[in-house]
């Protein structure tokens, strides 16, 4: 890290000293000044450029894994260059990767809802797998808010391996979040419905609509969620919003806020209805409820068999959750959005978007209040409510519309301010107080961002060991920041340099995000990622992360007819030809096509596409893929390599001949 910093300093220094060298190609600082003048760049701009400019071959220090919102994908971005490194196809088909056009179809089908294909998603909250509360760079999980699904992505090949549909609810927001050792992936409902999204009239809201948190057991060895060892806990229909897992001091706990403790059912807009719209109905109470869930206790209750099967899924009832003492509530400022646990796990920071304060809860006080049963009452579902004053540690006035909080290594917390359109830096108290010169629980600096910041991410800023240095404001609006590209504007990812203490916290880069509408994104140190450069062996099947015995090898290419109407094709691809180049089948044949890219060179990817049949694959070096279709349309179809693989790429093609039936 230090070396990189030195290198970027060296950049500027090099520009300064170059004037003194006798080199005929010497570039002088005068030229830098000349261009700066021409382009109207200030010294601060040049400094920002020196901090972010990443010349060819230099690699980024950090990597952002960003949700894509309703693009349904994940984006991978380098920091500080803010260059998009790649997209990962998740809930939405993506033709460059062939995702959903021949490969990944079975995985996408796992996410079918009530038997229907749902070929998009609304990705909100990525969660990198953790070991001892720190990112380990092995797995990435992300939710789909619109259909309550969770996807598992393997960071060896950056491909989605599993999509799992929640059987209980149809909409999630508090996911994906993981405890410090990724034993589970938490997913909580947002817009509540009756179990399984069955039909019920809105008048049944209070009695039949339910919230829940699902604890998906993650089998790290298999790299899959193990549904058989997963369960859920029933919650009141409070529109549970976002969540965070406890760590260190709060290990074993799971914190979850809620918006609609009013139990508003909306109904605005239809003539004769007198109900207030949701936006008003949901914002009436002065406080909503922070949910405090003892998940380690819940695991024991589940293992003891104290659950009921609902929609074929084990659920710990609200009644049992209360009687077993694994669920407590405490008031939080109304309509909260972020709930974030501090690095040592000792504080929980909640921001109510309609309250200019962040509210900080002490985990020690929460534990004490639970032990002493310091309740101010119970809610209408009988859940005990911890007395607010007994668990609250501090409130810090940070500005208007506070949403989410991240942490630095030096006792600073950073909160996004949606209405102020700014990032606030403020100080934590307790053990963190001595890490910076400012007094505890105080606002230090507000840096304007452009515009309407939603989430924010600091380098490893939600782990037990935040790095500081960089913070990215994930702004929702860009308004006037970029060249107009029609009325649909890109979002704006703004990089802030948070390496200095105090009030110095400048924006140093704007990155238009014109491919999705990201929500949360996590920032991991790049050297923690151990990605493959080619698949380990020829014939590698990414869906099982092993060599597939069916994978065609050089010299084993063939076309096999299996019975009257079935054909199996075994094909290889290598620069610059497919083997075989002629494939002839009969109309109506069920075609099973196996193909292996036998390349071993880094980046020697081949594409494979067949017109009319809607097939396109990306075959990375060593990869095996299988796809099936019924050759119902007769004709002559050139298949070809879609990836410009070599000098003779255009020649890399062949013909699929579908002979008409008699």
């Amino acid at each position, binding site marked *: 890290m230090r070396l990189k910093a030195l290198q970027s300093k060296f950049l500027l220094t090099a520009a300064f000293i170059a004037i003194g060298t006798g080199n005929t190609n010497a570039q002088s600082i005068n030229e830098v000044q000349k261009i700066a003048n021409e382009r109207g760049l200030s010294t601060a701009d040049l400094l920002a450029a020196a901090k972010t400019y990443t010349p060819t071959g230099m690699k980024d220090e950090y990597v952002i894994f960003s949700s894509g919102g309703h693009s349904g994908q994940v984006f991978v971005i380098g920091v500080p260059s803010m260059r998009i490194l790649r997209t990962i196809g998740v809930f939405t088909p993506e033709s460059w990767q062939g995702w959903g056009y021949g490969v990944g179809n079975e995985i996408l089908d796992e996410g079918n809802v009530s038997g229907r294909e749902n070929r998009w998603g609304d990705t909100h909250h990525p969660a990198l797998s953790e070991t001892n509360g720190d990112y380990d760079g092995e797995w990435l999980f992300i939710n789909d808010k619109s259909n309550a699904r969770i996807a598992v992505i393997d960071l060896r090949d950056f491909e989605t391996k599993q999509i799992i549909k929640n059987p209980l609810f149809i909409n999630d927001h508090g996911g994906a979040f993981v405890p410090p050792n990724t034993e589970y992936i938490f997913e909580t409902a947002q817009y509540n419905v009756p179990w399984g999204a069955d039909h019920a009239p809105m008048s049944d809201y209070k009695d039949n609509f339910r919230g829940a948190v699902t604890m998906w057991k993650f089998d790290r060895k298999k790299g899959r969620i193990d549904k058989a060892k997963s369960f859920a806990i029933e919650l009141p229909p409070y529109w549970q919003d976002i969540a965070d897992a406890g760590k260190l001091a709060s290990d074993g706990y799971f914190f979850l806020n809620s918006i609609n403790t009013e139990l508003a059912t909306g109904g605005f807009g239809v003539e004769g209805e007198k109900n207030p719209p949701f936006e008003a109905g949901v914002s009436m109470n002065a406080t909503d409820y922070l949910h405090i869930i003892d998940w380690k206790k819940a695991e024991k209750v589940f293992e003891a068999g104290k659950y009921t099967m609902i929609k074929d899924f084990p659920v710990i009832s609200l009644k049992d959750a209360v009687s077993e003492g694994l669920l407590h509530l405490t008031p939080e400022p109304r309509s909260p959005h972020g709930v974030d646990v501090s690095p040592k796990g000792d504080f929980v920071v909640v921001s109510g978007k309609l309250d200019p304060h962040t509210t900080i809860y002490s985990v020690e006080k929460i534990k004490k209040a639970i032990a002493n049963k310091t309740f101010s009452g119970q809610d209408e579902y009988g859940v005990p409510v911890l007395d607010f004053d007994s668990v609250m540690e501090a409130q810090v006035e940070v500005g208007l519309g506070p949403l989410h909080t991240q942490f630095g290594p030096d006792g600073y917390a950073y909160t996004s301010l949606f209405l102020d359109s700014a990032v606030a830096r403020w100080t934590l108290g307790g053990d963190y107080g001595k890490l910076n010169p400012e007094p505890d629980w105080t606002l230090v600096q507000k840096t304007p961002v452009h515009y309407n910041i939603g989430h924010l991410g600091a380098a490893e800023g939600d782990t037990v060991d935040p790095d500081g240095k960089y913070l990215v404001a994930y702004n929702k609006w860009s308004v006037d920041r970029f060249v107009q590209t029609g009325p649909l504007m890109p979002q704006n990812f703004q990089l802030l340099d948070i390496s200095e203490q105090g009030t110095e916290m400048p924006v140093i880069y704007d990155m238009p995000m014109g491919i999705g509408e990201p929500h949360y994104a996590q920032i991991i140190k790049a050297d923690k990622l151990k990605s493959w450069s080619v698949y380990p062996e020829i014939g590698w099947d990414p869906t099982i992360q092993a060599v597939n015995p069916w994978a065609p090898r050089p010299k084993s290419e063939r076309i096999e007819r299996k019975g009257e109407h079935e054909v199996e094709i075994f094909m290889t691809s290598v620069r610059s030809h497919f083997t075989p180049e002629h494939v002839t089948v009969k109309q109506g044949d069920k075609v099973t096509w196996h193909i292996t890219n036998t390349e*071993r060179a880094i980046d020697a990817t081949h594409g494979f596409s067949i017109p009319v049949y809607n097939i396109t694959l990306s075959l990375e070096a060593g990869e095996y893929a299988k796809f099936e279709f019924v050759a119902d349309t007769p004709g002559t179809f050139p298949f070809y390599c879609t990836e410009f693989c070599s000098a003779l790429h255009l020649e890399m093609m062949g013909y699929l001949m579908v002979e008409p039936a008699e």
Partner: protein
Amino acid sequence: MASFIDHIIGPRIEQSDRQSHAIRYGTPGFLLLLARILLLVSLFVPYWHMELVAPQYPENLHLVAYVNHLTGDVAEIDSLNHYIGMRPLGEAAQIERTIGVYVMILFVLMIELASWIHSRWAVVLVLPVVLFPVVFLVDLHLWMSHFGMNLDPDAPLSNSVEPFVPPVLGTGMVGQFKTIATPGLGLILSSISSVLILVGLFFHRRAYLPHFKAMKAEKAG
């Protein structure tokens, strides 16, 4: 017959004489032992490297030849070579690679034997060993010429590449590739071994020549 064998293996030295002139008789023995060890060690290290430099391979392509096998980016080089119609590298020098290790062991035995032969016939025994590094390079050159000059006329790029022979040592150009061929540690060890054998033989001869002459004179007398 016995006299012919005597003539070949040369005079025998008394144990007492050997002990009183340990340096004289020990030096050639030691040098030839060292030569044998170096030859054996060379079996386990590369004899020859070729590096292929091109813009799209930032870490270059590598070819590494051992006495008995070829490693490095063989698959990638083969896949590039198929464009110009060159046969797969695995088809080259198959016999040499199959018998290489046995020949080397034979060499070691021949040196062993040579150190027991106190006549000039010792030279005949070690000569193939001494020449081995040169033979290795010549053989390699012949294979490269054979492959480079006999390209498949039906290959995709057969019209755009003239037959070629990259230098067996030093740099050359093929298409966008710069080839850099360098001797490996094995070749260096076997070359040192050759020098050691020659020096060893010099001392060998010096130690045994008087005895040989004496033996001859005795016979003549």
